[in-house]
């Protein structure tokens, strides 16, 4: 491609200005993460989070709130990621009562039979996977992923999630988790030592077939009371 000398000079100047400006703002960075099944299909509802971030993030989570709703006899969202210290509210938007519980120690809790907003939010102080259920409707199943970082997201319908880092450098790990994933742990973690590695996005290409989705829903037969 033929480029005039004048144009390329302009470009060089523009690039220098941009780099300087970015450095001056101490650079926030976004990392686009996508999760792909072995058959090429996107994987939604995957928790994505960063850990072992060696820079000082200064992102305390005191007072942070999140919501795990109950609609049409399901937990919504199916997978919720929160930072330790987050208080999660469990409103019941159904017109029938639910009895929400988790046996996942040490984050176990019980919210006796209720509709609407009847209970105080539940504070999650320990990292780990919290499996939640309803003692009335056995088929209801949800997960709260409690992580030690404020940098987390959940993949959307297209298997994509975006993480926003306050500082565009450092040495950290990007992790994914879903109850459907069967891959070995090393395939679920990517170590980033240079921001350039993540600049074009990160793709987790899973190697093992996914477990069936609990969320998949069909109308033709009744599965609620079995």
């Amino acid at each position, binding site marked *: 491609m033929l480029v005039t000398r004048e144009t390329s000079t302009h470009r060089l100047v523009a690039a220098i200005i941009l780099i300087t400006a970015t450095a001056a703002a101490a650079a926030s960075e976004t990392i686009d993460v996508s999760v792909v099944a072995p058959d090429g299909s996107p994987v939604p509802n995957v928790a994505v989070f960063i850990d072992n971030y060696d820079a000082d993030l200064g992102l305390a989570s005191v007072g942070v709130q999140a919501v795990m709703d109950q609609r049409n006899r399901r937990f919504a969202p199916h997978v919720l990621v929160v930072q330790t210290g987050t208080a999660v509210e469990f409103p019941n938007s159904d017109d029938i009562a639910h009895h929400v519980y988790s046996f996942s120690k040490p984050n176990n809790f019980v919210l006796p039979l209720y509709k609407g907003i009847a209970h105080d939010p539940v504070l999650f102080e320990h990292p780990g996977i919290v499996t939640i259920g309803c003692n009335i409707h056995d088929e209801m199943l949800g997960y709260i992923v409690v992580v030690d970082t404020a940098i987390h997201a959940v993949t959307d319908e297209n298997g994509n999630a975006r993480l926003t880092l306050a500082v565009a450098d450092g040495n950290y790990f990007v992790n994914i988790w879903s109850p459907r994933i069967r891959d070995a742990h090393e395939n679920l973690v990517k170590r980033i030592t240079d921001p350039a590695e993540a600049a074009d996005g990160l793709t987790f290409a899973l190697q093992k077939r996914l477990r*069936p989705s609990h969320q998949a829903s069909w109308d033709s*037969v009744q599965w609620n009371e079995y």
Partner: protein
Amino acid sequence: MERVLRAALLLACTAVPAAAVADSNGLTVGAALGFVDTSGHVSWTDGFVGKLRHSDDGATLVRGFIDWRSRLTDTLDAHVVLDAYDDDIGNAIDVTEAYLEWRPVPRSPRRYRLKVGAFYPRISLENVAAGWSSPYTLSYSAINTWIAEELRAIGAELTMSWRPESLGGSHGFAVSLAAFGGNDPAGSLLAWKGWSVHDRQTRLGDKLPLPPLPQLGPGGLFERQHPYVGPIREIDGRGGYYVNGDWRIGQRLLLRATRYDNRANPEAIAGGQYAWRTEFDHFGIQMTLPGDVGLIAQSMTGATVMGGIVDNAHVVDTEFDSRFVLVTRSFARHRLTLRYDHFELTQNDRTPEDNNPDFGHAWTVNYSVGLSDRASIAAEWLAIDTDHCGWVYYGIGPTATERQMQLLVKLRF
């Protein structure tokens, strides 16, 4: 006049104010009424041999029920189902199921459920709606019709279920173990009448008419048997059991296997009722096929015996076998269901004066439209072809085709 009174009672049921709609929690009052057109023999419910419930054509209240589930505490429910039928069997209204269910809050991935009272064994994959009705068809499959006619456990059922985290939560397993009393005469109606296809659920106090077989009459081989059977009674003081296992994968697949044995003493008789040793194995599958087509299939193979041993066999030694396949698809408020039933009943005894083998199959087609949360209409066509050589006792041919067309409104409050 009595029928008119019952009809009025049923209508009164449907006028009870509602506490909740279509949920396992609260009060559901249901009614099914409309037009029935049948052809074939006079129904077994009227004391003859017809496999259908209705002998007469015309407008009728097919069923009225009250399904009441009360949360006594956060983890303890009381569940009572009352049924009313427009026929001459038993009381106008009676109890079909009544039990307490305790669901302790799980402390581990294992969940426990304990039922105590009178309840259906955990077998049917069709009868999953309020009042043990089927969301798919009006008449139940031959297997579940027989369960409705003669099976009820009075005792306790403990279910343990778990979802292994290592399998990602979509796999669920459940194992149930039940010990029960009563249900000793279960098998009488099946052995003497044969299989049926209908939706009449026996209430705890019902006395079901047996077919007017000469061997049940005065001077007959079984003259000590009353002309009716109360299938839920205790006769011999021996308890029975069933074991059930479920494996479920999300909303894709459910496999179920059941072993039932009422452990009755086949030589016991009390109050005009024989005890029948009835045992069977059951397998069921529920699947979602591509295109969101639902498939349910169940099969049951077993035997029921009664009386002392004559020539190495009990006086009545009957083997039974049935299976059905149901496919269903819902299109928004519409649902179309097709079911094929096959049934067999053979006798291995050495008692030629009592011979009631029963072979046949049935086709059922149902089309339903939900008008609202509280009302739906359903049109159902049903045909049963039967080969039953014992019908010669009544001077009627050994084969029959019975047909039924129902056009019903189903109401739930």
